[in-house]
């Protein structure tokens, strides 16, 4: 660790990440990777699977922090461990190779990770639908919406990029696209919900 980078306590991590401090996030990522990687490797996973699971776990943590809805009742380390453990269990179950026993080297505490994961799953589903809807909407709507919402470009920039005569034209186009996206998105969304 170290290498001249500031070291954070758990509270400092949370506040820094909430603020959008990427250095803190990088530091956190680096800090707990070995633990999760070790756990996954111990339980018949590969290096790449370990990285995938860890990134997913950090994502859950990060989104909760950014949301401001994280209620940490334990160390970040424990929370991440619990989340990644659940995620890996799920992967194993999907692979159909889960033997029922897990090589734990830390006691699994009640961390609230279960509830957070259920929430994250719901969010994942919504994002997947959104991705699908964006795939189906077609050009130039897709580029326009992605440019505005996903890549955080300003309307002026987009106007120039897409060759609209003025920003109002671009805006109108954007709203039309939003309406179409809404139809696509909600039709899937409702469809899924009616299951």
């Amino acid at each position, binding site marked *: 660790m170290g290498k001249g980078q500031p070291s954070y306590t758990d509270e400092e991590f949370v506040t820094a990440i909430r603020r959008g401090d990427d250095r803190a996030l990088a530091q956190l990522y680096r800090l707990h990777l070995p633990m999760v990687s070790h756990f996954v490797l111990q339980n018949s996973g590969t290096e790449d699977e370990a990285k995938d699971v860890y990134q997913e776990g950090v994502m859950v943590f990060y989104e909760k922090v950014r949301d401001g809805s994280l209620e940490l009742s334990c160390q970040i380390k424990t929370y991440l461990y619990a989340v990644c453990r659940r995620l890996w269990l799920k992967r194993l179950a999907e692979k159909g190779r889960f033997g029922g026993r897990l090589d734990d080297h830390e006691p699994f505490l009640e961390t609230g990770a279960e509830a957070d994961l259920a929430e994250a799953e719901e969010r994942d589903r919504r994002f997947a639908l959104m991705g699908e809807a964006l795939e189906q909407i077609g050009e130039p709507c897709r580029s326009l919406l992605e440019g505005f*919402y996903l890549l955080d470009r300003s309307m002026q920039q987009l106007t120039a990029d897409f060759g609209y005569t003025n920003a109002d034209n671009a805006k109108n186009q954007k709203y039309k696209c939003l309406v179409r996206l809404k139809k696509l998105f909600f039709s899937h969304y409702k469809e899924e919900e009616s299951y």
Partner: protein
Amino acid sequence: MMTEADYYALFDAYQNGELAGAERANLERRLAADPSFAQRYDDFEELTTTLTSYGERLATRNKLKAFQAALDAEADAETTVETGNPNMPVMHISPMERKLREFWSAHRATMAIAASVAVMAVFVTLLGLEWWRASQSSSLYGYTVLRREVERIKRNQRAMGRAINQIDGSKPEAANQSKFSGTGFALTADGYLITSYHVIQGADSLLVESRDRQHYHAEPVFTDVAHDLAILRIRDKDFAGFRRLPYSFKRGQSDLGEKVYTLGYPREDLVFNDGSLSARSGFEGDTAFYQISIPVNPGNSGGPLLDDRGNLIGVVSGRQMDVQSAAFATKSSYLMKLVDSLASASPKEPYNLPRTNLLAGTSRPQQIRKLQDYVFVVKVYE
């Protein structure tokens, strides 16, 4: 008339705080009053927030990937530093080995279980086969037990080192309570009897029972373990002696093919069996014995072996289980030598061997009728 897109423009402006006071109040009032309008606004809001957070998610994912890439690059850099230093011990792991290691770490548990299942299967199969063989071939199993019996006798009679399956069956009759029984016959008219040694082996007391159910107490006078012979004497005070013995003892050897027969008590009644003299040596080439082709059973031990002319030529001793109807009998010449040596020591009660043969020339049923009173059951109590 406003299109949906116009509404979205309105909502967007509202969210960005671009609406002026009157318009804003108008919109808020309408949101509160019109549920379908409020629904439309909610949908818009959900759509945009989902879009925004989706974008954020993608950005974060890229960030994390970048972190990981940086870490990987760092690790790579570290390894190049390591390998770059010639003084550092370098561990070379070939791609093949790395793959093997990965495979091992991933499938360790499965392989361990598979291996233990295989080991279990081997042992279960072996045990199962053993059990099956034991239960299937009980005769084979009995054969080995009998062999063990043979071993035991071999140990007991180590002087001659021969191993034959002795015939000493226990009588099924529970009333007489004797542990073993065999057959015996008269040696002299005044109360000497002959039987096999193994019949009386380990006996506490002996009871001799004749065909007419008369009981006499007897005691061993002499035993010859090597030739499986025992001489008994009746000790009852009121015993007056037998009548004259009808048979005589042959001192020489008999010839192969001689018709021979025996009387004995393999069960409560006297049983006759006949056959031929099939070899002039016994089990494992023992020359003190004949091999005879008479079907004998436990209880026949100690019975007299006679030839066609009524000469006593042997004492039935045992049989070999794994050979068809191969029984063995001690040669009478050895019995005679034994009696001679005992007689020469001038005992209190002399051995008056029968000299004449009353059986010669008579038919076999007649021979047996004369003979049957001189053949006894020897009951052994331990």
